[in-house]
Structures are given as C-alpha cells and as structure tokens.
C-alpha cells in the first residue's frame, strides 16, 4: 500500500472512531428486558436467592457427591460436595458438564412410539398409554425371551430392575458400558475374585504410598474413580511421610496420567503383565525384598525375553525394580490396559504379585478391599462381561429374544461392529429404550420411555471404590423440565399391575417410598423417620466418619506360576498392520459426554484437540508410512473402516496407532451428531476366555491416506508438538 501515509491513516481512523461513537449514541442506554413469570413457582427458595442441594454425580460409575446451586428453580452450577468422603469437594469436568444433559435442547420431552424403527418418526404418547403398551408387550411374550441391558445403573435402579427381572422370570439383566470395558472394570472384578478372594474392586491407598507403579491405569483421567484417586495422588505428592511419592506409568501412549508421572515407561501394547513379571523376577532373583522363597513362582519368566517383547531394556527393568524395592510402601496398580488382551487374569496376577512380594496387601499405602456391604441392596451394581453381552447378541440373532429393554447403555454405538449387534437388534421384534435423548439405540427402538436426567431424579448409589461404608444419596435439585418419568417408577407401576410374585418382590408404591423403606436400616434408634430423611437429603447420603480399610482375606496369586509365554500379547491381523490403542476421552469418556458442548469444546489435555477424532502416530512411523500432520486417513480393520486425521505424537510407542473413543455419533443430539468418527467399530470381537472381557487391545489395523488434508482444531501451535520438539 504505497499511498497510505501516516496522515491519511490517522484521518481515516478519526473518521471511523467518530462514526462508531455517533452510531453508538443512537442506542437507548436503558436496557429493555423481558421478564417471564413462573407458571408454577418452585416450591422452595426465594426469587434471587440460591439454594444448594446435595446429590450424586452419575456421569460415570464412581459416584462422587455433588452440590448443585439452584436459583429461581433452575440448576445453575454443580460442585463437589465438600463433606462427601469420596471426592471431598472436588469434581471433574464431566461432572460439571452434567448441567448440559439437563438442558440439552434435543432431549425427549415425553414418551414416544416409533412404528417404523429407525425413521425417527416419533409419535407422542401419554404415559398411561405408553405403560399399557409396554405391559401388554411384556405379557404377550414368554418371560424368558425378555432381556434387559443396563449401563451405569445406580444401585437402587439395579436393585429394582434385577428384582423385577427375577420375579418375572426374565433373562438376568446385564450391566455393560464400553467405558467400563476400557477401564477394565468387569475383568478386574474377575481377577479380584481369583487374587483377593472377592469380586470387589480393589482400593489402592495411593495417598500413603511412596511409589506407585501403574500398569495401564489412567487413574488421574478416567480410571474407575478418577476424582478419588486424583485427590489421593495430590496427598501423596505433598508427602504425608515426609517425602514426595514417586509415580511410574507403564503404557504404550503418553497419557495425561503418564504426563503427571515421574517416569513414563514406553512399553509395547499388551506387555503390561509381562513387564510386571519381569520386575517380579528381578526382585526375587536379587533378593531385593527378601522374598527368595518365591523363586518357583517366577521360574517360567525370562527377563531377557520380557525386555525383548516389551521394548524395555533389561537394565532399565533392573533400575525400576530397584526403585520398587527401595521404598517402604510401594504399590502396583493393574489398570484397564492389563486386561485389554487375552490372558487378562495372568497379567493381573503378575501385577498383583508385586504387591504380595512387597507385603503391601492390606497394608497402609497398599491394596485394600472396599467395606463389605451390610446387605445386597447396598452393594455396588455388578458388571457384566463382554462374553455375556455377546451371548445375548447371539440369542437375539437366533430369535430367542422377543423384547429388549435398554437403560443407560447405548449398545448400538459402543459395541464393535464385529459383535453383530446392529443386525441382531433389527431382528428383535420389540425394543424399548429408557434414554432421555435419542441416542443410536433409542433411534432404533419401538418405544422410548425417557427417564429423568440425574439432576431431576431420586436414588442412591454405592461407589465401587471407597475406603469406608458409603451410600451416596441422589435427590432432584429441580422439578423435571419435561414429561419424563423415573424408570424405577415405571418398573414399580408394572409390578403393581402384574401382581403376584412380582408385586411381592417390589412391594413399594413409588420410588421415594422404596428409598425411605430401604434406607430406614440406617436410621438411629431414637431418630424420627422424617428427621432421618431430612438429614439424608441434607448430607447427600450416609457414610462412616472414618476410613475402614479392609484387608483381603485370601490371596491365591501364588497358586499358578507365571510364564513368559503365557503373558505374551496376542494380536490379530496381518503383519503390515499396526496395533490399535484405544483410550477413553477424558471429557467424552466412552461417548456419553458427546452431547454436551462444553465437553466437546474442552481440548484433550495431551493433544489439545477438540470436536474432532484424530489418530496419533509416532513421527518415525508416520515417516515410513509417508504421512504428515493433518493428513486424513482411512483406518481399516477386518470389521470396518473409519476416517481420522493424523496427529504426530512423539509420546507413543513406535508402530502403534492410538485413537480416542467418544465421537462419531449418528444421533444423540446436535452436539454429538456428525462430529468425528467412532473407532470402537473397528475392533474385532476377541474374547478373553478367562475373564469374558473384550480384548480391545488385540486388534490390528491398516491405514491408507484418503488424499486430502484437514486442519485439526487444536489449542497448541498448528505445527504440533512433534514439530516443536524437532525445532527446539
């Protein structure tokens, strides 16, 4: 611009500024606001004043306590309940974002019927008609042909649903979500039954540990009870024992947890158990923990082979074993990565054996069990294995399931294409969903009976991981926004109508009656029922004041010796293929967070990408494959293919491809639909025979460039971390 002198520029600026000021003055400075009066005012509280209600977060199975600020009858903000022993006032991003589940503009507002399944031509129903239709359908088929899938049920829903199923003679209900599979929960329960003598999630006393060896457990992000463990981690780092705890993370990918750890050990996928056995072998051989008597258990383990297979040099293993032996209270955690391959029990045994060697089972800073529930109704809901789900799918395909009920799970999204769920679902004559939004499963349902969202609902939940007796209470913080109905109330209404054994098994008139009756067990002798109920709601549940650490009774770990051959990872697919490492997104988890714009917008902590699905490739591998940052590629497995954008990630094992789970929805509302792709679909349905778990780490995939580029929406430099590392 050769003609633009300083003078002309200033004149132009002055003119522009004057125009802006003059035009601004034409706007009336007084605000004209419209006020809407309530149709029905909220029952409690004053206009403009805040009320806080204590309840329980239900975004994952952990069951953290929350307090919700409510003003003018609307929930405004969710925080952690400072008195709740599990999270003590802390809350993760997913918990905070639960508000957007409540105010999701694409929520179902009433019960609907869909004559032509999959067309989304929903026909609104009155609840009386909807319930009459459901009860008619339930009567019209043999009870043994009715199946129920729950995902992340609260304890009280599990109790009611399983009693209903039992009394009616239905198939036993399943509780399965892919998020639980990724965190290894069902498989780890199986391993616990063998190793600790009880099918309960072990509780790791990270707070008092001096060294934490985490084998594929993303305990600061998504693993089982991330807020509880993050809090314990922060205490460990502040050093209650006078020194700062040391964390070693064994994982193929640099996760957020690995970033926070002192050391990230880059292992090959599926070698978590192998590495643990190698460490154990060194500890025993060198007598580092004075446990030479156990040499027989490690006879079949060869450190050289472990080093070769895992990619961790033998000297490195020796150094790490030295750290484990040096500290007074080390602990080894078996995470989701351990059970991601076949042979999950052996791998979990190898990890647990380290705790036994160090004498850390039932010791401060070691492994404990959660308190034994006083009654079955106060137990965490049991989890089903993938094998049980696959059995159901096979039965659906064989025509042995005539009616399918789905609550809280989204199997049409979160089961691999290879499981055959989609075609099997089409073969089930009648499908009922209880989803509050139209997710992929509800879109294929005959009848949708929307449940309340968490903030509108009653209930109680027993967390799977807790250091004390803890029953977390759930109460509505506001009146339901729409004409939805609690699924527990639906089951209770059906039970009353069916009469006989079913109504005997469920003798309560409604959900609140059920809660008050069941929870009466905790009422003190001289406390009036009303006073107890008020206190229950005020506190947000019932818990012991002090931790009750419970040492496991049995430890069968040394029954069967370990062997390197057994612990070797077994991958499927051809040699030109690459192992696929899936991980749950810290915000979207297994995809249930995708309908919340806040979570979609929150950048992934490691890659800083939001809204899209990327595939992480180690730079040298990418170079071999001729791929660059931002290339769109087709990821191809035996089952299907999906598209993703290449993200060069130096923090990844060579040859491994890593993808986040959570996006790629076809339905599930405007914020989920059409963003990213769904890598779960790629997985082969390989089942670990011992645990019944899905070997989600055993799938190998090929990638092909599509021939175009797409920029990733990321917070960091456009060039990516790979570039920055090379330059600086």
């Amino acid at each position, binding site marked *: 611009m050769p003609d633009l002198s300083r003078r002309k520029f200033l004149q132009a600026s002055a003119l522009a500024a*004057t125009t802006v*000021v003059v035009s601004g*003055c034409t706007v009336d400075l007084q*605000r004209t606001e*419209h*006020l*809407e009066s309530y*149709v029905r005012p909220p029952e409690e509280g*004053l206009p*403009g004043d805040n009320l806080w209600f204590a309840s329980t977060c239900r975004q994952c199975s952990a069951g953290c306590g929350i307090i919700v600020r409510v003003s003018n009858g609307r929930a405004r903000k969710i925080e952690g309940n400072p008195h709740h022993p599990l999270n003590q006032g802390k809350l993760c991003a997913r918990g905070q974002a639960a508000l957007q589940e409540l105010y999701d503009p694409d929520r179902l507002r009433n019960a609907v019927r869909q004559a032509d399944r999959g067309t989304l031509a929903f026909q609104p129903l009155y609840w009386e008609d909807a319930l009459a239709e459901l009860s008619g359908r339930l009567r019209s088929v043999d009870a043994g042909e009715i199946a129920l899938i729950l995902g992340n049920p609260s304890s009280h829903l599990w109790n009611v649903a399983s009693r209903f199923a039992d009394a009616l003679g239905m198939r036993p209900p399943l509780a399965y979500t892919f998020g639980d599979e990724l965190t290894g929960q069902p498989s780890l329960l199986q391993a616990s039954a063998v190793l600790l003598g009880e099918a309960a999630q072990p509780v790791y006393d990270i707070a008092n540990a001096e060294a934490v060896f985490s084998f594929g457990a993303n305990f600061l992000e998504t693993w089982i009870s991330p807020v509880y463990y993050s809090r314990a981690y922060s205490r460990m780092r502040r050093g209650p024992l006078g020194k700062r705890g040391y964390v070693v993370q064994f994982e193929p990918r640099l996760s957020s947890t690995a970033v926070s750890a002192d050391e990230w050990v880059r292992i090959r996928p599926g070698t978590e158990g192998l590495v643990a056995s190698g460490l154990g072998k060194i500890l025993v051989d060198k007598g580092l923990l004075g446990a030479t008597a156990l040499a027989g258990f490690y006879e079949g383990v060869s450190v050289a082979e472990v080093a070769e297979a895992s990619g961790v040099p033998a000297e490195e293993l020796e150094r790490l074993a030295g750290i484990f032996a040096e500290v007074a209270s080390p602990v080894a955690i078996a995470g989701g990565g351990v059970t991601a391959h076949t042979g999950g029990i052996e791998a979990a045994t190898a990890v647990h054996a380290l705790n036994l060697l160090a004498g850390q089972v039932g010791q401060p800073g070691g492994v404990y069990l959660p308190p034994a529930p006083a009654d079955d109704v106060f137990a965490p809901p049991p989890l089903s294995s993938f094998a049980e789900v696959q059995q159901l799918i096979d039965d659906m395909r064989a025509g042995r399931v005539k009616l399918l009920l789905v609550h809280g799970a989204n199997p049409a999204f979160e089961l691999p294409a290879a499981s055959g769920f989609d075609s099997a679902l089409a073969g089930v004559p009648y499908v009922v969903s209880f989803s509050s939004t139209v997710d992929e499963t509800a879109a294929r349902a005959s009848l949708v009976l929307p449940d309340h969202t968490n903030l509108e609902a009653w209930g109680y939940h027993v967390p799977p991981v807790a250091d004390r007796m803890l029953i977390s209470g759930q109460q509505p913080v506001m009146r339901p926004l729409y004409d939805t109905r609690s699924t527990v109330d639906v089951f209770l209404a059906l039970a009353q109508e069916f009469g006989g054994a079913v109504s005997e098994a469920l003798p309560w008139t409604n959900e609140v009656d059920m809660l008050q009756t069941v929870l009466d067990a905790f009422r003190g002798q001289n406390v009036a029922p009303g006073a107890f109920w008020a206190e229950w709601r005020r506190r947000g549940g019932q818990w012991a004041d002090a931790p009750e650490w419970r040492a496991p009774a049995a430890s069968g770990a040394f029954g069967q010796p370990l062997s390197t051959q057994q612990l070797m990872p077994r991958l499927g697919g051809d040699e030109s293929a690459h192992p696929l490492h899936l991980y749950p997104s810290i915000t979207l988890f297994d995809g249930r967070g995708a309908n919340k714009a806040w979570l979609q917008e929150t950048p992934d902590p490691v890659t800083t990408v939001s809204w899209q699905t990327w595939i992480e490739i180690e730079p040298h591998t990418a170079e071999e494959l001729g791929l660059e940052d931002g290339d769109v590629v087709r990821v191809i497995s035996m089952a299907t293919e999906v598209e993703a954008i290449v993200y060069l990630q130096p923090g990844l094992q060579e040859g491994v491809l890593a993808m986040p789970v959570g996006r790629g929805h076809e339905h599930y509302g405007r914020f989920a639909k059409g963003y990213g792709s769904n890598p779960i679909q790629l997985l082969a349905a390989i089942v670990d025979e011992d645990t019944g778990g899905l070997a989600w780490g055993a799938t190998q995939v090929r990638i092909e460039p599509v021939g175009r580029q797409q920029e990733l929406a990321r917070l960091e430099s456009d060039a990516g971390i790979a570039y920055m590392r090379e330059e600086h």
Partner: protein
Amino acid sequence: MTDSEKPRPGHWRRTLVVFLALVVVTGLALAFGLRAVAGTESVAAASAEAEAEATITFNHRRHLAADIPCLFCHPGAINGQVASIPSLQKCVGCHQNIEVARESGQVTVNTVLQMWDEGRPLEWPSIVDLPDFVYFNHRPHLAAGKNCEYCHGDVSQMTMAHEAFRINMGFCLENCHRHQDPVKRERLMDCATCHM
C-alpha cells in the same frame, strides 16, 4: 526516506484538530443520549411501551381497590432481595373463582386462564431495572419502615405499573440516604453499601 514520508509542518496540528473534533462530537452525543434516558418525559413513554410489550394489561388500581396488599403478590420484597412477579399459579388461584372469564367476559383474565391451560408464562417488561453493579435488597428497606409507594409511587392509581420516579443513585441519596441521622448516614453514604 522518500518525500511523501517526510514529516511536514502542520502535520501534528491537523491531527490535534481531528482529535478535538472527535472529543466534541463524543461529548455532544453522550449528553444527548443521557438526556433521553434521564428526562422525566420518558416515564410516560416507557409506560406506553410497557403496555405494548406485556402479554396482558394488568390493572393495579383494580386489584388494590379490592384491598389486596402489595406483598400478597410480591412477597419477595419482605422476604428477600427482589420483589418478584407473581406466578401464573397465583393469578389462577384467585381467578378460578373470582371474575372467571366466561362469566365476566374479562378479556385479560381470559388470557391468563388460557396461558395457564397451555402452561405458557406471561411476559412483562422490566419496570425498574438497576444496573448489575448495584447491590439492592428490598428487605432492609422495608425493615427500615419505608413503604412501597415511597419509591414506586402511588401504584393504586396506575393501571400498568410504570416508573413513578427515575430510580438512580441521585434518587436514593438525595431523597433518603443523605437525610438519615449521622450514624446511619455514614453507613448509607458509603459507596460499598450499594456497590460492594
């Protein structure tokens, strides 16, 4: 340095003139804008505007003539920060028995009952809307013995409510806060009392 880039005499003077012109224009524009807001003639206009924006033309005079106290419909004034607008449920609570539309032929009541049936809220224009940096609480004012009309005027003579006085800092300080006894005055003239 080329010729056109050289600083020339008079260059800065011209810039100054432009700048001064800018200041004058801004000042005039602001003064004009503020006068429109602060002028008493705008109250009547606002009232007419309010009537046009509201879903119904609510008749305060009629309700007060029936001896209904202000706090019956606006109980928030004595209990909390904001007086609040009554819910539709409160309107219907009376009007399902009194002046029921079908019998009296009242158009306004008919609208209310219809909105209630449809579950739709009534819309109202905001009459007194203090800026966000003012912390105001009705309760201490009522507790200090001020009645509603002290600030809101004689609503018993209004149909649709309108702002009888322009409620701003001058109104609060000059009419009331400044004329309290010295102990109270010190507290009530403190900035942080209302702008905390």
